């Protein structure tokens, strides 16, 4: 099975979620993260002193999916998260060995 990890802009989360759902995804896990990248950070000024904030807020999605679905879902994800502006984020895919559903103990594709 595959673990798809995506880092996206926070305000795109709802759209991405909706797109994935339409594509048949029934589960995923999301984390608030901070990204460092080409987009660069921003400057905040407090009492005239500038603070360089390098990390910008992002959302990280993790989805375990069946091998066969991976490519298609990566496309859906990329589609849904794209604004075309710098900082849209990344998607990467890794192989995983087992997936277990805690409630039932089922494993493999049945556990998705």
């Amino acid at each position: 099975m595959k673990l798809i990890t995506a880092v996206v802009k926070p305000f795109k989360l709802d759209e991405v979620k909706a797109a994935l759902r339409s594509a048949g995804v029934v589960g995923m896990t999301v984390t608030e993260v901070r990204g460092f990248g080409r987009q660069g950070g921003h400057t905040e000024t407090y009492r005239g002193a500038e603070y360089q904030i390098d990390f910008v807020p992002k959302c990280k999605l993790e989805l375990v999916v069946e091998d066969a679905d991976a490519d298609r879902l990566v496309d859906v994800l990329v589609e849904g998260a794209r604004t075309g502006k710098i900082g849209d984020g990344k998607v990467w895919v890794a192989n995983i060995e087992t997936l277990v559903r805690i409630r039932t103990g089922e494993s493999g594709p049945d556990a998705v």
Partner: protein
Amino acid sequence: MESGNVAWILVSAALVLFMTPGLAFFYGGMDRSRNVLNMLMMNFYCVLVVPIVWVVIGYSLAQVPFDNGFIGGFDAVMLKGIGLDDNGGSLATIAYLGMFAAITPALISGAVADRMKFSAWAIFVPVWSLIVYVPVFKWVFGGWLGQRGSLDFAGGTAIHVNAGIAALAAVLVLGKRRGWPQEGHPPHSMPLVMIGTGILWFGWFGFNAGSALAANGQAVQAFMNTFLAAAAGGLAWVLVEWKRDGHPTNLGAASGIVAGLVAITPAAGYVSGASPIWIGLLAGVICSYTVRAKVRFGFDDSLDVVGVHFAGGLVGSLLIGFFANPAFFGGEFREGLFYGGSLRLLGEQALANGVAIVWSFGLTYAIMVVLKRTMGVRVDPEVEANGLDLELHGETAYHGGGLH
């Protein structure tokens, strides 16, 4: 003026000043975490600019000469001629009224949340204060509407109806937030909302009971009314939503408290006995429904300024026509219907509010349109998406952990 009265006016003035931060937290907690600072700033800005405007020219236009029914003049510009005789009584009153001038435009900020340019707000506030607030204030307190016999103890018409309908005009020009009403935005910090609520109620005793401008029986009754109407309003809203939506909520309690406070504001020095309880209950029930109007009619009043302040203020102001009880106060105003009065008082209340509504709606709309055509009133979609705090103010509300 007796020292006890001076003390009471000063305390009341300090309490009303404290209400603007309270309002900021009430609104700010309801907002999303990426816009909370913009919300706080819109409110705090009002207490920065309005006090200056008020003493430089506003007070003079709003009051002096006192016998002019339509507008004051320039006699008291920059407090000219205001001394400390009468133990400081008149100056204390001017300071006290300045607090009201400051919080009134702040009320509007809840409606325009999340999408208004701060630069436009910076212009809107002083302009609105001078051409909307000041005349309505004059007409209601001592001017032609007041002289005809309409009643407004602490600013139901002059403040809540006025700011509430202005909020409607403002959002009609401004347009809806991106994604509204499909996307919901629950309050980012309910404890902050409740901090604001506590401060508001506390401060409102100064707002209402202070409006007697003396520590006397009328002040005491206004105090008691403020206590009871807020409680009744909160209770009513909580019970309605418990039945209707299945849960008694903190935001319901807070909203009902504010609705009750708004509704009792015009009536506080004119009603007695169980009346504040009825007024509070009615306001709580009614406002728990009027906040839904925005979705039905499609105007995006972000934090329900219309549903709470306009509706609550109007309810309270009209209910004076039923509950006014001059005998209790030994006062020289008309009886309400329940105390043997005719429809006349209710008619005057309707007229006063009608005039305020037309004036405020029309002129606010005009100000917003002019601002829109000149500097623009709305932030770019990207600014709206990224949050106004960072984009307009270069600040972020919360910085946690080791990530900075």
